């Protein structure tokens, strides 16, 4: 063929080649690419057969792409060409042309062309056309491979964005739930998604008892042993509140099967583990805060009960001066004092202290107060009154609750004092002449036991200038920062030294002395006292 004629024919084909390239590059799969290429070859070469083959690497067998009939070994032997050129032309053979094209992804395309139907061999125009079509296929294939790489990169990029998003969401969602089971399940669901793990579990152990406490797996009901014994696993653990929480991931999935977890997976597992710990810690702190709030409410209620019972004002007694104080501690100790006008010039002076603190102590004081007012109305003698109170408190309080109780009924006209001391600190009596007595007689605290043993009473006289001082253990047992008590001795010395003050001033100065001694230390018990002075 003359050169000019060849150029002219190829020029006419140029548009067709361009269209062919566009069709090939629009192929959505490799199979479609090969199919389209086969049609392109068919449209350009009028031959008996055109067979396409493909193999992914050099030393494996060819896969036939489009042949409906069986391809024989002798056919395939045509493809075993070690020529450096991709196209080999034959004369007088079953196949006119054999192509073995090395593709950009290291795979191979094989083509067998049968004889031309006009019986001629491949001329220059055919040979150039084939070269151009092979170049077109090679370019389209490269484009196809690049598109796949691009898709893979976009997928990986999206996957990373998803991981970051999931990690942030996991932190937020784990902190949203209080139910630990939901928190654990959510953590497992999120961590398998983040790492492509086939399964995961959380194991919780009691550290002290060295006992397994709980195991939760994802997917649910999966054998825990199959996760723990898997060769492809990673773990992360933390300890909190005496428990060890261990997160285990098993089998990282890929499209090609199971593989080992990588460093990023370990980091992601540790991140979820930290988020889980934060969630458990927050729940613990919330519980603590609610408990604190509950205790505060109880304390406030106890204080309200106690303050309602403690007298705001004491009665005026002709020929006597009386003063009292109650300073509740933060925890509300259950101290009680009173001075009750019971008629006919008689007054009941009371000092009591409930064992224990808080609402239960306050309620017991309330019971004592109500009962006391009732019994005093019946003008019972004090030992009988103490017996009745003992029975009542014994019945209406738990075994560990009792009340130390001191009562003195003053006949203001005669100065006679009838006294019962039920296990309370001794009352202190300082005579005008300086002599000093501690009044301890009586019996055990109210509500301690109910053995039918009567309380014993005591009578004495209070003369002009004498002072009777009642108190609770909050004064002698008040402690400073070095945990040393104020002590009975210091209190008695203070009483002796300052008893000439009017009762109200004495009590204030005693409280100040106690506070000076205690300093910055927190007041752990109520401070309560009552003083009676005969003018």
């Amino acid at each position, binding site marked *: 063929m003359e050169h000019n004629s060849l150029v002219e024919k190829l020029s006419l084909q140029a548009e067709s080649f361009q269209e062919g390239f566009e069709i090939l590059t629009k192929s*959505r*799969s490799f199979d*479609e690419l090969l199919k389209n290429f086969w049609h392109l070859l068919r449209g350009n070469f009028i031959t008996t057969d055109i067979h396409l083959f493909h193999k992914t690497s050099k030393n494996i067998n060819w896969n036939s792409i489009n042949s409906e009939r069986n391809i024989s070994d002798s056919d395939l032997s045509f493809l075993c060409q070690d020529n450096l050129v991709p196209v080999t032309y034959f004369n007088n053979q079953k196949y006119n042309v054999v192509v073995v094209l090395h593709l950009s992804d290291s795979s191979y395309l094989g083509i067998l062309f049968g004889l031309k139907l006009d019986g001629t061999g491949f001329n220059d125009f055919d040979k150039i056309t084939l070269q151009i079509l092979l170049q077109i296929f090679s370019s389209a294939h490269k484009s196809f491979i690049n598109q796949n790489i691009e898709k893979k990169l*976009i*997928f990986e990029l*999206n*996957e990373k*964005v*998803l991981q970051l*998003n*999931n990690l942030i*969401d996991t932190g937020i969602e784990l902190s949203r739930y209080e139910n630990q089971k939901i928190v654990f399940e959510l953590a497992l*669901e999120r961590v*398998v*998604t983040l790492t*492509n*793990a*086939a399964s995961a579990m959380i194991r919780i152990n009691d550290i002290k008892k060295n006992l397994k406490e709980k195991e939760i797996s*994802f*997917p*649910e*009901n*999966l054998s825990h042993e199959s996760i723990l014994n898997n060769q492809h696993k990673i773990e992360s653990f933390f300890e909190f509140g005496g428990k060890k929480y261990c997160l285990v991931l098993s089998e990282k*999935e*890929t*499209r090609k099967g199971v593989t080992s977890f990588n460093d990023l997976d370990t980091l992601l597992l540790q991140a979820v583990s930290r988020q889980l710990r934060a969630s458990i810690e927050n729940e613990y702190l919330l519980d603590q805060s609610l408990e604190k709030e509950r205790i505060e409410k109880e304390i406030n209620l106890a204080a309200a009960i106690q303050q309602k019972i403690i007298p705001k004002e004491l009665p005026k007694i002709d020929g006597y001066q009386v003063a009292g104080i109650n300073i509740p501690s933060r925890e509300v100790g259950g101290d009680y004092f009173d001075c009750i006008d019971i008629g006919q010039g008689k007054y009941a002076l009371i000092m009591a202290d409930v064992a224990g603190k808080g609402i239960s102590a306050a309620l017991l004081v309330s019971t004592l107060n109500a009962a006391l007012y009732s019994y005093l109305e019946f003008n019972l003698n004090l030992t009988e009154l103490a017996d009745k109170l003992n029975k009542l408190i014994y019945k209406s309080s738990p075994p560990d609750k009792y009340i130390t109780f001191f009562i003195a009924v003053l006949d203001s006209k005669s100065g006679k004092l009838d006294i019962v001391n039920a296990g309370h600190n001794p009352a202190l009596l300082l005579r005008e002449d300086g002599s000093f007595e501690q009044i301890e007689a009586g019996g055990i605290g109210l509500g301690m036991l109910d053995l039918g043993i009567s309380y014993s009473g005591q009578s004495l006289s209070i003369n002009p200038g004498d002072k009777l001082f009642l108190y609770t253990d909050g004064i002698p047992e008040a402690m400073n920062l070095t945990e040393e008590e104020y002590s009975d001795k210091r209190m008695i010395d203070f009483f002796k030294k300052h008893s000439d003050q009017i009762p109200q001033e004495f009590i204030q100065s005693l409280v100040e002395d106690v506070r000076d001694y205690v300093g910055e230390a927190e007041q752990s018990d109520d401070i309560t006292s009552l003083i009676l002075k005969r003018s």
Partner: protein
Amino acid sequence: MSSEFNLVTEQYDKALVIKTNGYINNTAGEKIIHEFSNHFVSSMNKLIIDMENSKVINSIGISYLLEVIEKLNENNGKLIFTNLDPAIEKTFNIMGLFQFAGKADSLESALK
């Protein structure tokens, strides 16, 4: 969610419905592809995947769904997801699945 992933297939004139149950991972993805290849016929133009009972999916599972989308595109078909858990819907958004697939609130509306 049970330990074993399983699925149920329903065939309609123009649509194939696959209802999944469980964690959509590698194994589940293979099952979905297999079910799709076996039951999606040329008269159909729609594949509906009902994910009411699947709350967790990993990226391997997503890659299988993308493969299904590509196969459907070759056949001018469309994939529609129904009953998506909000977390999975967000995942599909980030992974770009809704550029090639639709979503419906219920199976009934997906079939319309």
